[in-house]
């Protein structure tokens, strides 16, 4: 069977030969126009005078548009319509698009965009957490609070109490292919849009609104992205809408791609967080009660910030049973880029909070943090009572006529389950939001990883090294990951597929997922090939297309292969069943006895090639085309109460990282990482390991070298790779052992696999905790390092100074 095979990425040969096409590589008609935005140079205030004469007069300029020139909706928000394509008078951040230049070339558009004369009346920008709190500048009416038990009482009653704070920076996606879109006007008002997007339906919806047509007049196609990481879930809206509006206006194809600096100045990034904690624990380090306060800078528009901040709360426990827990979350509105989805979607931030707490408790007790972590783990799956009550299906939601919410966006407001939430079975440990944890496998995974990484002996050797070396200290840490899989906006957990079989037995497959490098298309093709019993080469993978599969959810939340794999399976099985019924009739056999394997279809003594069966089906007037549909079962979630089962299951992983730090400069590097990750029964181990390796390095980058710096005026100073440093080749761990945990998903997912896109990102937390361990070795052990992220050389040196009683 094709599934479980470590096949290369479906486009690998195109990648290596430069033949894989991205949006900017698509051949365009000769009269194509090119677009660029003129950007605000202040963070907050009003435009008092906008003079665009020089822009209009610049060579090659065809048109210049401001907010007043837009024919329909001036809105590219994926949530509450608070994100105009062009600013109008009011300026909300430095880098905000004010006007749109339409020109004969990319360079002409960029040059003209800099010629505007703009008078501003600035006001004090709200940039920091303090400033936002003081001004009560926030999204939602107040902080969101989830709780379980009575955290305050449990903390007070605990033998030990400590409190602390961790600050963690945001992160630029740095997809290698910048944002890009191309709009091709058709006859009768239709628009075809090629977009580098994780969410073609969202693009379709926003473009339709912007050019005043029903969604059926807009077709969006996405063959592949040069990286997404969440940065192309909503951030491509502006370019696609701009292209469509300009194409409608001029009747000519319009293309827009951001120059890298523009991309970094305009688009949202990972949310930065501050987390305050107060925890009560016993002599073993077991948490009795814990109180978290999350503060996050969401930027100027709501975008997807509510579900991001929700997911941070939902991962405040990570792998640990917190009997009494309170989490308060402040979603602060600031005059900076609108923070957006980024791999993990708040999960990493929430998880880092509790990992800091574990590290801090261990330091206070003088124990190996590993022991404290294990003492707090949820009980093993085998020791939990099984069979949680299935969630009742939520009652259908009524949408009022004229309700223009973007239903397919994670920024939409979710329905509240009407028929109550499931109750956890007696004796089962639950998360702070009441979901039973019944698939917990980290005890055995941790044990296996400790063995394979030789943790105990290395910890000993590191202690010896640190005793002997005054200027270079080493550290080591193991951190676990438990990540919830499903969109927390329950209705997004659905997918569709369209599968055709042709007379020659070749298969053309389409689904709602998008390909951004993760290998989704290949995995799903492997599913299709397996259903038909043919080689994967018989399955043609095609571009995501809103004209083929409608109403798709974003390829996000790690859901791609879970949802689309199941939808494709359903479509294939429909066709297969029709074929089986046909053959059963012809051979007086039972349909279930027809076998599809190795490119052959057999029933009793009869043996056909798959192509022969396709031909036979056609001749017998049996349809060879089918749609497939899937929706994730068992989900019920109330995000206001913070109660229910938002996740179908959890994905697990653990990493051991060893680092070295320079006592004199704070320079640091990762020496070795050992990773064990749970992908269930992997659909493609090679692609899954690729996700794990890449996720680890990206996660470690977030916490070490990747630093976003804004100045006092609100200008992002790190807006290019010259100043914003993602990991380079030599930053990966020199010794890097990655393995997949051999197990099947307990839930009925596609071939019992597990989602693997986001969870490995959080394995990188072990790097920060290893740095904390190394810094602690720079003093007498009396001071907790309290290392913030990103742990640049500078932050590490400051932490070392605190160890030495300075600073």
């Amino acid at each position, binding site marked *: 069977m094709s599934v479980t095979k470590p096949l*290369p990425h479906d*486009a*690998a*040969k195109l*990648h*290596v*030969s*430069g033949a*894989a*096409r991205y949006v*900017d*590589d698509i051949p365009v008609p000769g009269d194509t126009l090119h677009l660029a935005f003129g950007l605000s140079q202040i963070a907050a205030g009003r435009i008092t005078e906008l003079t665009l004469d020089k822009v209009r007069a610049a060579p090659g300029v065809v048109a210049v548009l401001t907010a007043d020139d837009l024919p329909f909706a001036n809105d590219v928000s994926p949530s509450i319509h608070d994100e105009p394509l062009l600013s109008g008078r009011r300026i909300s951040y430095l880098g905000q698009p004010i006007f749109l230049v339409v020109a004969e070339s990319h360079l002409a558009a960029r040059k003209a965009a800099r010629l505007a004369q703009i008078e501003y009346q600035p006001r004090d920008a709200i940039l920091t957490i303090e400033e936002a709190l003081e001004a009560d500048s926030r999204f939602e009416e107040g902080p969101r609070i989830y709780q379980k038990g009575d955290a305050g009482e449990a903390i007070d009653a605990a033998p030990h109490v400590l409190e602390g704070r961790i600050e963690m920076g945001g992160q630029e996606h*740095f997809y*290698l*292919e910048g944002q890009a879109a191309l709009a091709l006007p058709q006859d009768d008002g239709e628009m075809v849009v090629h977009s580098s997007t994780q969410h073609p339906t969202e693009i379709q919806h926003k473009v339709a609104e912007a050019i005043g047509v029903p969604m059926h007049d807009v077709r969006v196609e996405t063959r592949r992205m*040069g*990286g997404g990481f969440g940065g192309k879930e909503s951030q491509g809206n502006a370019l696609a809408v701009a292209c469509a509006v300009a194409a409608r206006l001029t009747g000519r194809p319009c293309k827009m791609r951001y*120059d*890298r600096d523009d991309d970094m100045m305009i688009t949202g990034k990972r949310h930065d967080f501050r987390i305050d904690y107060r925890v009560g624990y016993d002599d073993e380090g077991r948490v009795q009660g814990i109180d978290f306060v999350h503060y996050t800078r969401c930027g100027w528009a709501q975008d997807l910030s509510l579900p991001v901040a929700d997911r941070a709360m939902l991962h405040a426990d990570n792998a640990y049973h917190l009997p009494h827990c309170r989490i308060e979350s402040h979603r602060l509105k600031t005059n900076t880029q609108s923070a957006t989805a980024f791999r993990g979607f708040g999960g990493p931030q929430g998880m880092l909070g509790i990992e800091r707490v574990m590290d801090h408790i261990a330091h206070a007790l003088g124990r190996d943090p590993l022991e404290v972590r294990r003492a707090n783990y949820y009980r093993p799956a085998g020791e939990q009572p099984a069979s949680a009550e299935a969630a009742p299906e939520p009652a259908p939601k009524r949408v009022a006529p004229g309700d223009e919410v973007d239903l397919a966006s994670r920024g939409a407001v979710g329905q509240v389950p009407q028929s109550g939430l499931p109750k956890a079975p007696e004796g089962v440990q639950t998360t702070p939001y009441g979901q039973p944890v019944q698939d917990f496998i980290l005890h055995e995974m941790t044990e296996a990883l400790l063995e394979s990484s030789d943790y105990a002996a290395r910890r000993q050797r590191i202690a010896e090294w640190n005793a002997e*070396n*005054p*200027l*270079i200290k*080493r550290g080591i840490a193991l951190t676990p990951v438990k990540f919830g899989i499903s969109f927390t906006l329950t209705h997004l957990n659905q997918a569709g597929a369209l599968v055709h079989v042709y007379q020659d037995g070749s298969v053309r497959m389409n689904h709602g997922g998008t390909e951004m*490098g*993760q*290998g989704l298309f290949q995995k799903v093709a492997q599913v299709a090939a397996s259903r038909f019993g043919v080689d994967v080469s018989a399955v043609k993978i095609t571009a995501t297309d809103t004209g083929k599969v409608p109403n798709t959810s974003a390829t996000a939340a790690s859901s791609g292969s879970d949802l689309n794999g199941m939808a494709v399976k359903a479509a294939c099985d429909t066709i297969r069943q029709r074929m089986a019924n046909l053959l059963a009739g012809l051979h007086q056999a039972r349909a279930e006895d027809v076998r599809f394997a190795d490119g052959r279809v057999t029933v009793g003594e009869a043996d056909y090639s798959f192509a022969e069966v396709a031909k036979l089906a056609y001749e017998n007037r049996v349809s060879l085309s089918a749609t497939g549909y899937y929706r994730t079962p068992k989900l019920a979630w109330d995000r206001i109460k913070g109660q229910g089962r938002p996740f179908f299951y959890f994905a697990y992983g653990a990493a051991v990282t*060893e680092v070295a730090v*320079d006592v*004199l*400069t*704070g*320079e640091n*590097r990762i*020496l070795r990482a050992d990773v064990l990750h749970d992908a269930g029964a992997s659909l493609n181990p*090679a*692609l899954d390991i*690729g996700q794990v*390796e*890449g996720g680890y*390095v990206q996660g470690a980058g977030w916490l070490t070298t990747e*630093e976003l710096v804004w100045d006092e005026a609100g200008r992002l*100073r*790190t807006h*290019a790779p*010259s*100043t914003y*440093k993602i*990991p*380079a*080749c*030599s*930053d*990966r*761990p*020199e010794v*890097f052992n990655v393995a997949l945990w051999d197990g099947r998903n307990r839930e009925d997912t596609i071939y019992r696999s597990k989602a693997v896109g986001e969870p490995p990102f959080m394995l990188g937390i072990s790097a920060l905790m290893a740095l904390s361990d190394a810094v602690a070795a720079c003093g007498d052990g009396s001071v907790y390092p309290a290392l913030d992220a990103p742990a*640049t*050389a500078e932050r590490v040196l*400051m932490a070392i100074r605190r160890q030495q009683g300075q600073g």
Partner: protein
Amino acid sequence: MTITFLLNGERVEVPQAAPTETLLDWLREKRRLTGTKEGCNEGDCGACTVMVREADGTARALNACILFLPQLHGKAVRTVEGMQGPDGALHPVQEAMVEKHGSQCGFCTPGFIVSMAVAHANGQRDHNDRLAGNLCRCTGYAPIVRAAEAAEAAPVPEWLEDDLTQIDPRPQDMLPETADALAAALEAHPEATIVAGATDVGLWVTKQLRELERVIFLHRCRDLQQIEVGETEIRVGAGVTIDRLHAAMQERHPSFAEMLRRYGSVQVRGAATLGGNIANGSPIGDSPPALIALGATLHLRKGDTRREMPIEEFFIDYGKQDRAPGEFVEAVTIPVQPDRLRCYKISKRFDQDISAVCGCFNIRVEDGVVAEARIAFGGMAGIPKRAAHVEKALLGQPWSEETIRAAEEAWAEDFTPMSDMRASAAYRLESARNLLLRYFHDTGDAPVLTSVLEVRA
């Protein structure tokens, strides 16, 4: 100007080439060779890497986004499309990348393929260094390095052997062939912008969108590209690229070479020149502090008039150098000396990052006493600058930790660094001070391990 070069084995002539049209734009827009990608348009990501071979056979990986067409005159360019054989056969590094799962989103992949193919052609196996100029956001690099290793032993495909004899690059205006011709051209056009490797001027064009009225390219002046090792001094021509300087310093001043290993990336070091790194006057250029610490002399030329000065005197103030219009940097001479030099580059990322602080130390100790001290820093002031007060505080003192600690106050007299996105002023000052301690431990009788780059798991 008419520019002639080989493109994927085929002779091309670009008549009336605009002096600042980049190879990347030309490839993508005029030739529809879209395999070469634009990732950052400033030479930092490597997605646009192309192979450029010179008449002497040297093959380099360069960033097409900041490579102006005139820089290719008389050379052979291969893009990712030119890595496959005429029959479509994959290059060994392409095959290995498929086999080892080295591509995910695929956007950076063409650049990696070219960098890997260049290293493969040159027999270079220091993959971390060879690939430091190519960023990948998907894979975490591990499978890419596995692919590079897997292809090491494969023979170099014969189709990569470009025959440069068929080009016949005609001399062109603004492309002088000798230093004399350059001097004459600059006398005639003192307002012209001088371009050597374009790793800095390239960004004036791609990022600041500046129109450069007149550009004079000096990369064809062979006589500016000589390294002459004499009895008392080493003379390095202004047109010597950083990769060649790196090689030249490996034996004599290995710490300088180690710092140059981290200067930019392969693509940058293959284009950038020593003269450019000095003449642009950047306070964060990495070669000036080392040259100051070595007591190097700068040689300037205007027409037939030459003058020289200790290199530190060239840097007058931020953005201001002692160079007259029409004058150019001709060479640097470094006194031959026993190696006491240590160069320490502090940056957020080890590879391909601009220094927050670059400190270079050259201290001579006689009978336990500091007899001579030359200490210079980049990133600590508006210019590359000597730590004169610190040097003075050390001179004549016993070479000890006590002396170093006693000199602590002097640092603030020498430097009042600024805070920016690379580091705070406090960090700059503190790490600079600590680097003197590192130098002490590095050069002592019982050396102590001082670099995390030398630690292995």
